[in-house]
């Protein structure tokens, strides 16, 4: 599928996605945006897995990616449910406003 594209390019894109996701997760304040950023990081990781799978002629990379997608879906449903509950409770999803555990 991705034959012809050198592994290094795949890894570059994958790393780029991961870093963009990380930056979003660390810097944004909207919980949903953070959530999306985390999805982005996971997809970066997925891409790296696919790239290695193709380079090594192994199916295992693709299998792991399926697991990741499945878990990400489950996580999305749980996470969004939390956000809805949170919003009902505090009327905000700005993570800076949500610091009940703070000293």
């Amino acid at each position: 599928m991705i034959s012809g594209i050198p592994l290094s390019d795949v890894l570059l894109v994958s790393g780029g996605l991961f870093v963009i996701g990380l930056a979003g997760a660390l810097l944004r304040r909207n919980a949903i945006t953070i959530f999306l950023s985390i999805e982005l990081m996971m997809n970066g990781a997925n891409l790296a897995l696919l790239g290695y799978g193709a380079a090594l002629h192994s199916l295992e990379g693709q299998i792991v990616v399926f697991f990741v997608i499945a878990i990400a879906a489950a996580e999305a449903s749980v996470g969004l449910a939390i956000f809805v509950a949170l919003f009902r409770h505090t009327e905000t999803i700005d993570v800076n406003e949500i610091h009940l555990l703070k000293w």
Partner: protein
Amino acid sequence: MNVPLWLVPALPLAGFLICGVLGKKLGKSFVSAVGVGSVGLATVAAYSRLLPFVFGSRAPVVETVGGWIAAGSFSVDIAFRLDALSALMTSFVTFVGFWIHVYSIGYMRHDESDAGYARYFAYLNLFMFSMLTLVLAQNFLLLFVGWEGVGLCSYLLIGYYYEREYAAAAGKKAFVVNRIGDFGFLLGMFGLFGLFQSLDFDRVFSTAAADPARYAPFLTVVALCLFVGAVGKSAQVPLYVWLPDAMAGPTPVSALIHAATMVTAGVYIVTRCNVLFRLAPDAMAVVAVIGAITAIFAAVIALAQNDIKKVLAYSTVSQLGYMFLACGVGAYVAGMFHVMTHAFFKACLFLGSGSVIHAMGGEQDMRKMGGLKSKLPLTYWTFLIATLALAGIPPLAGFFSKDTILAGVFEHQRYVLWGIGIVTAGLTAFYMFRLVSLTFEGKFRGTHEQEHHLHESPPSMTTPLLILAALSVIGGFVGVPKVIREVFGSAREQNAIERFLSPIFVPLEESVEHALGAGTEWLLIAISVVAAVTGLLLGWNWYAKQDGRIPARIAATFPTLYELVEDKFDVDEAYDFLFVRPFNWLARMLWKVVDVLIIDGLLNAGAFLVELTGDLLRFLQTGNVRNYALTFFLGVVGLLLIVIGFTY
């Protein structure tokens, strides 16, 4: 009719429980009936055993109620003993105790609420139970139960008027000082068990007597420990300080506990353990010297007291000193004889003083009395008889017992102690006649209101006075010395009380008795009578005839000395300085330094350290999700770097 011995102490115990639990609700008449009735029944029960004993074979009886403690080789039974010594003690403890209970009805009736009245009789019954347990016990541990019980009742009754601060303090003082003595007694018991593997009287005494050479060295220590207990309980120097303060209790209590019965427990234990003491001559010497010092010391203090009960209290201390002096020289019979006669006349004196205080509306200062002779005739005459008995005027009870003691001391060649005894006899007569003169002779010195109030006490109070006065007259005839009996044609070697008590002395190999010649004995009698009469006449003349001018002049000439005597030689202050304050200081230091500073400090330091760590570490917890994510990320980076570092 053979009443079991345990019933004798059990009856007052039942009285205590009934008065204590139900007395408040059922009122004074009920309490009087139960409180006095239980002791009356105990007296009947005791005499139903005593009379057959005295007129029978006089063989010691031991009645075991049951086992009490059994642990390994240590075993103690609840067992009671009836022998000559316990019979003698029981006879007057129950009898005098009963009449003092009767007296208490009249004395306490007006003053107290129903609850106070019930409390009073409950304590008094508990005391009778403890005292009878003490004298009837067959082993040291059961005796110790009674020993501690009488101490407790003493504390409770001294502090009976607990709303008065000095009464509560006096109770505490008595308890603490007694505890010091009891500690010695406990040590003595440990020593006895260590030596003999038993606390049973028969076992201990027969084992000790069988092999004196083996036990004698240890017995000195054990006997001295037991004597420390006796010193505490019987108010001897240096632990006598509690007894004068004990007068803060109601007067019948002073008569019963602090004159007639409890304070003689020390003499009883020394006599009971006569085998141990006779095997330890050094201990006996200590007993004799302590007794003599106490006798004269307390008599001197009594000279300058103005509180009628304080004089009697110091007199009691002094007379107890006589008893120990007798025991210390080996004249145990004389000691017990004096215990008995003293119980009669001192109880009579205290009850008489109670009658006076009752009539004076609570006044105890003799300087505000005077001239009560005509107002309280019965009290006066009984008081006078008891005073003469205490002073040792023949043929009253005190004369015979005191003379027997002094003859015994002389016989054992303790001439210095004998001299002290004679001087004390003179002092005793003097201060007692000072008391009588100040109280009953001359003019009334109190207020008009008090004078108007003066009245003879009710029959419930005067009857005990009459009976005890009668006993003060005739009580001495059981112990008439041989020389006097010979005049009346009695040929027996020993008098009644010597014959009666002789079985309690296990024969030991002792030095030969120095029997006194008849002439010497007559001389001794003459000297003691002269001393007593001199003191008596001086007291009478100085205080009744001359209104105390001479003593006032003496006091003015030697103001420092007089003040010292009046302040009881400042012994309380010295003890306060030497023991109470250092202990207070120590306690305060243990509290402020060891407890608060060191122990609490260590705990608080630990807590503070934890809190400080938490204070610092909590800054890591921002509560901000992104900070956690960043930390997480940095952690992963760090881990990766480590992995890379290890790989390459």
